């Protein structure tokens, strides 16, 4: 079953131009599922980079706008789009020109996978 899910993610990866990597991790950035091309920058996959999201959304929730849902970081060459699915974090690493709206629309598609993976974290 894991292979099938991985294939689905791989398929998404191919369909969206400029999408380099999909990463489903726990709160501390430890990966549960990871698919990516070799274009994904190594540094952005490091757990301490990804786990910063968890801390940032805690601070962000104090802005009075409610719970943080998505964080889009736009860099010169890359975009990092992270979704709050706590206890999981979903990270997309894309090129700077990638279709951000399309990535955001993927949420519906990956939600069933996320809810299943949440069980893996919750049970431990």
């Amino acid at each position, binding site marked *: 079953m894991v292979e099938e899910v991985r294939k689905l993610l791989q398929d998404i990866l191919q369909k969206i131009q400029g999408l380099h990597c999909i990463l489903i991790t726990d709160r501390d950035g430890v990966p549960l599922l990871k698919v990516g091309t070799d274009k994904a920058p190594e540094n952005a996959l490091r757990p301490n980079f990804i786990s910063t999201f968890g801390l940032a959304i805690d601070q962000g929730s104090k802005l009075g706008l409610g719970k943080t849902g998505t964080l889009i970081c736009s860099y010169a060459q890359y975009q990092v789009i992270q979704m709050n699915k706590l206890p999981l974090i979903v990270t997309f690493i894309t090129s700077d*020109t990638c*279709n951000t709206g399309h990535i955001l629309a993927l949420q519906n598609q990956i939600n069933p996978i996320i809810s299943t993976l949440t069980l893996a974290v919750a049970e431990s």
Partner: protein
Amino acid sequence: MEKHLNRVMEEITNQPGVYGCVLSDHQGLCLGAHGQASTESSGVITALAEQALKLEPKSVMPIISLENDNRQLIIRRHGVLTCGIYKSVCN
């Protein structure tokens, strides 16, 4: 500021048969949606326009029409803008 844009979208939605429209930028982020169109569709609409352009890269921006028995979605891109119009069709 965006009043003008809202008015344009309202006018389009008031056309006969049209029940929604959506407008997105080059990154697929929604600039505006009116009527029964979700802001989430903007990314997919931009992606469709992009893929369709790849079929004939040298020609002008194509018009894409998606149809089922009673509804139609028309998409066209111009420069950085992509717009989609949702229409109901009666056959």
